[in-house]
């Protein structure tokens, strides 16, 4: 059941944000996912993200398809409009929502089954259109609701709970997104909130399609020995490419960092994505390098996490379409209907 309300208990010490809302105000219904599900950690990260960015909950549209991951949208932002659409087709619905009301912040949550099999085409085309939205792919390599089939992201050799090993090559959503020209590509781990939250923040503020693949282990069907998307395996294999921080626009003047030790990427609205460099140089604005980097580590059995690529000045769907600044759903009818005189004049062309 995805709509069991949480008891309205409020911890007195909860800190309000600029809107006077506490983190509790950003929660949703009680999760009905399995205890320990990675998706619940993603939910918590989304709650923290929206709270810390002072997002007005009702200005968010949260959308999903079908599956365990798609239940996530019920568990955060109870004052946001939510939409469980049909399996794999959330990107099209989100595209329509964006077309109608460009002022909404759109958060899409999907899974590896939803995004890489039944909805693969829709994901690709939302990337092509650069629909302005945060797209979180909760990736566990398995179909949970239908009890344990491999998904298209299962690695070769990864073992299912019953012991059989996957032999088909996986689709890597990050490499796919990079290839298709996505303007924001990241990968993270549900168990690493320190990394995930700044990435979600940057993604939510991105003026285009922000794609985040989150390895989010399935504790019931894919958290055993031999699975490459188990907690143990992910913790062991994941390599953070560089710590990322997101500094919202309004806090810019308060930020103090050593420019020599970091690379900062300014976002469209003036906020900053800041990479603190560690062992290696990593340029998050070089698509080819990002691809090569992910691929190289993959060959070594490692999962690279972090903000892999960012292009902040690309045109989003509305810029490509030259849509008016006001949301289309709210345009006065007078601005839409040419009126009787125009029709009479037009009819002359058909006489």
């Amino acid at each position, binding site marked *: 059941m995805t709509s069991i309300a949480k008891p309205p208990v409020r911890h007195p010490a909860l800190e309000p944000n600029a809107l006077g809302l506490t983190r509790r105000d950003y929660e949703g219904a009680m999760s009905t996912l399995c205890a320990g599900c990675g998706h619940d950690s993603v939910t918590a990260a989304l709650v923290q993200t929206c709270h810390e960015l002072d997002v007005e909950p009702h200005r968010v549209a949260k959308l999903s398809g079908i599956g365990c991951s798609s239940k996530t949208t019920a568990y955060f932002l109870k004052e946001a*409009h939510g939409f469980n659409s049909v399996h794999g087709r959330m990107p099209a619905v989100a595209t329509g929502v964006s077309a109608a009301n460009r002022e909404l912040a759109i958060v899409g949550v999907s899974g590896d089954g939803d995004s890489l099999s039944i909805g693969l085409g829709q994901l690709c085309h939302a990337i092509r259109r650069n629909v302005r939205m945060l797209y979180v792919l909760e990736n566990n390599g398995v179909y949970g609701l239908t009890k344990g089939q491999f998904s298209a992201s299962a690695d070769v050799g990864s073992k299912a709970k019953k012991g059989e090993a996957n032999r088909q090559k996986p689709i890597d959503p990050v490499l796919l997104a990079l290839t298709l020209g996505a303007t924001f590509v990241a990968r993270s781990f549900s168990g690493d909130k320190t990394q995930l939250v700044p990435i979600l923040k940057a993604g939510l503020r991105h003026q285009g399609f922000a794609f985040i693949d989150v390895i989010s282990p399935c504790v019931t069907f894919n958290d055993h020995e031999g699975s490459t998307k188990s907690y143990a395996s992910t913790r062991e294999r994941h390599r953070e490419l560089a710590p990322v921080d997101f500094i919202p626009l309004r806090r810019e003047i308060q930020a103090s960092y050593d420019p020599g030790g970091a690379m900062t990427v300014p976002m469209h609205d003036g906020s900053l994505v800041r990479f603190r460099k560690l062992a290696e140089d990593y340029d998050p604005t070089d698509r080819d390098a990002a691809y090569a980097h992910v691929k190289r580590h993959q060959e070594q059995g490692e999962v690279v996490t972090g903000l892999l690529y960012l292009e902040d000045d690309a045109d989003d769907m509305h810029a490509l379409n030259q849509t008016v600044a006001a949301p289309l759903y709210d345009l006065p009818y007078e601005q839409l209907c040419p009126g009787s005189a125009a029709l009479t004049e037009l009819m002359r062309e058909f006489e």
Partner: protein
Amino acid sequence: MRGARVARLFPESPSSNGRHDDGGRVNDFAFKVGTVNGTGSASANSLLLQSIFRMGIPVCGKNVFPSNIQGLPTWYEIRVSRDGWTARTPDFDLIVAMNPATHERDIAEVRSGGWLLHDSSWPLDAALLRDDVTFIGIPLGRMCVEAFSGGRERTLMKNIAYAGALAALLDIDLEVVKESIRAEFAKKPKLIDSNFRALHLGYDYAREHFACPLPIRLERMDATRGHVLLDGNTAAALGCLYAGATVGAWYPITPATSLMDAFGRFCARYRVDAETGERRYCIVQAEDELAAAGVVIGAGWAGARAFTPTAGPGISLMGEFIGLAYYTEIPAVFFDVQRTGPSTGMPTRTQQGDLLSVAYASHGDTKHVALFPSDPGECFRFAVEAFDLAERFQTPVFVVSDLDIGMNDWMIPALTWDDAYRPDRGEVVTAEQLAAMQRFSRYLDVDGDGVAARSLPGVHPRGAYFTRGSGHDKHAAYTEDADAYREVVDRLALKLATAAKAVPAPEIREREGAEMGIIALGGCHGAVLEAVERLAGEGIALDYMRIRAFPFDAPVEDFLRAHDRVFVVEQNRDGQLRSLLQLETGIAGDRLLSLRDYGGVPLSARAVVEGVMAQLAEVAA
């Protein structure tokens, strides 16, 4: 008998007129042009249609074209009807046979006593000649090769040359034709000159060599004033524009494509800020029909008037989303411009094969509002109505036309608009109303009509709810409880029953002394109307009901119950309208006599008359 056949050939001498066994008919005949697609004949044919229309004579044109870009046979049929009948007729008085590949068929199809115009640059196969047909040979190809240079121009101008010959033979006002050419090429004056030359090649040759006009000929009338020649897809696109639709999503498919093409053109003209270039609309060419439906539903959910034009295969793909919109109660407008099925069928031929699949689209218990325009004028009005109904009842609404209505030019009264119109947005709660509420429940029917108020995202925190295609109760909360589930789906049934009273009522024409009835919808209307008139002349009086929408309301059932025998005319193999009437009204099947025509070409009055006669003969026997 070869000699006799040759004797029937029109002599190429002005002094010896051909014989005519026809007394002559003015403004009441049909002709068609057989050509090859991709040769540019479409513009010559529409020039002919337009010129006759501009002479004030009622006329209709039907394009019978292949699903191919170049090289296959295509025909254009023109019916001139002083009485204003708009249906196709298969009785051709004259055929212009420009395609040697179809000579055999074209010659066979001319009515006895009719004429066949052919390109005499090449000899006609003598074995195909008929005694009862007059052959008019004009060396169109040869003349164009001499008069023009370049292969493409010679091919194109051959079309204008046969148009010129027809102008002479049928007495089409040459000045009207020229005026149309001038208007067409206003921006390319060089082409005006070559078109005029080509026109005169045919015209002058016909005048010099044959007695012009033929006994089938035109005379100016004043019966087209206030009318236009318009296709249904263009009209529907105008309806979307005037209804205030702002989001259109689609995947190209014949015969629906031109609807979105036209919407884009009109938006570019009327909805773009001249200074900034900003657009007050968004058209998404989706990756497939599934996505197109998803975009429309997302936009509808967020409060925009959104639509998608498609055809049968698209409706099939959209099925899952249609069910979602029905159950989650999201307004969405679907245009189904039907083509022949099943499967890919004949994509460029017409049919009414989607009636059942539209009425009950998707899995589970679903039922949808569908409107059936019968001409482009109704495509315009029903498009506007569809958006109002979709928002008022928060449900998918289908405008079901077909290839004949959608892609052919119809003579209809010029479209008009009432500036007092304002969109019916249905029950949408405002921020102020939400602020004053204790609790907003998305699926709560307050006034007992089955319609619940909806809230739009972004408007007010209290308006937030979770939209789900899974089981939900009246508060929009997930449920698997039998009673809570039933409460919602029973309300949906009530909502559709309310909608049945709001959709366009059937149009009923009663006839003195009629005991039997006849029912049709959509593009069959013109043919049935004409057939009913002709049957009355034969002493068979029929009351006629044209169904304009689904679900059916009381008048439809009343009509069925008032007649012991009712003919149901439709263009599909299985009698889908008849099935729908039986299913929805429970009327006994033996009272419904099915007349089906499903070869892919527009219905003719002759088919209806013959069908009725045959059934009556069977009943009598």
